[in-house]
């Protein structure tokens, strides 16, 4: 819920700054290693945006992939692991923890 509220607060602030009249969608990018369930985020967004100019707008979700690879042999992994299962080297995990309000789509004018 706190993530949904952060989206709403920041989007409303930007809408005011840019004098946006009618917002159609908000796009966020979430790191795949953050423990956010996209369906739950959409549900919470509906609740958090209720009664604001964002009510009824679409929340679009993109994912930021994490780079998980062995520092010795370069083997890539889909999920974090401490040691490489091929060569025993350390596996580094980069990214995948960001949460960014990327884009606002709106209609302006008459």
């Amino acid at each position: 819920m706190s993530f949904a509220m952060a989206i709403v607060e920041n989007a409303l602030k930007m809408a005011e700054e840019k004098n946006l009249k009618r917002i159609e969608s908000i796009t966020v990018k979430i790191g795949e290693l953050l423990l956010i369930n996209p369906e739950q985020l959409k549900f919470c967004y509906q609740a958090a945006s209720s009664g604001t100019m964002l009510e009824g707008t679409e929340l679009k979700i993109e994912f930021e992939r994490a780079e998980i690879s062995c520092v010795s042999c370069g083997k890539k992994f889909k999920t974090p692991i401490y040691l490489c299962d091929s060569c025993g080297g350390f596996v580094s995990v980069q990214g995948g923890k960001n949460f960014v309000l990327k884009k606002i789509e709106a209609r302006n004018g008459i």
Partner: protein
Amino acid sequence: MHKIEIEAEIDLIAENKRLAEENRKFLKEKGIKAINIMGAIGSGKTLLIEKTLDALGKEIKFGVILGDVVCKADHERIKKYDVKVEPINTGKECHLDAHLVNHVIDVFDDVDLILIENVGNLVCPVDFDLGENYRVTMVSVTEGDDVVGKHPEIFRLSDVIIINKISLAEAVEANIEKMIQDAKKINGRAIVMKMDLKTGEGFEDWINFVRNLVE
């Protein structure tokens, strides 16, 4: 009416990062260490704090932050001790964040070590840096021996992993070695401790860890 796209690129967790850094700066300036104790409901977090205060209360000046949805019960337990304690009722939220800790941290300007009990949850607390020096995650064998494998992210980012209630392992058919191996697979740098807070088994390892932190 025409359609426009605004490229926002706003970091939505920037505020938490900023306040965590503020907390970290406060701790560093005052020479205080802080431990964020995470774990499921009933894993033994509050008892760990009580036993730590019992064992080291005379040699280390502790502060305690208790986070819970309603933390009256834990507050009653800890306020019997001669330590500064600040309860944080999170209300709707399932985790502490840097902002909530920032509200109370000034109270602890003269302590050596702050023990922060996070809300009972193996998921959400992971994503919120509090500005702490060490992250400890506590699990009990009664949660099932697959609990570590099911929640890799919290264990990946922990400095210490405590497996509690080991005297009950046989009764609940939990394989302690599997839990240790799962923990090491995801995070080989963490210190893994087997413990039973009721019998005291393994508790000495924790006491030595805490003592070393403040020396």
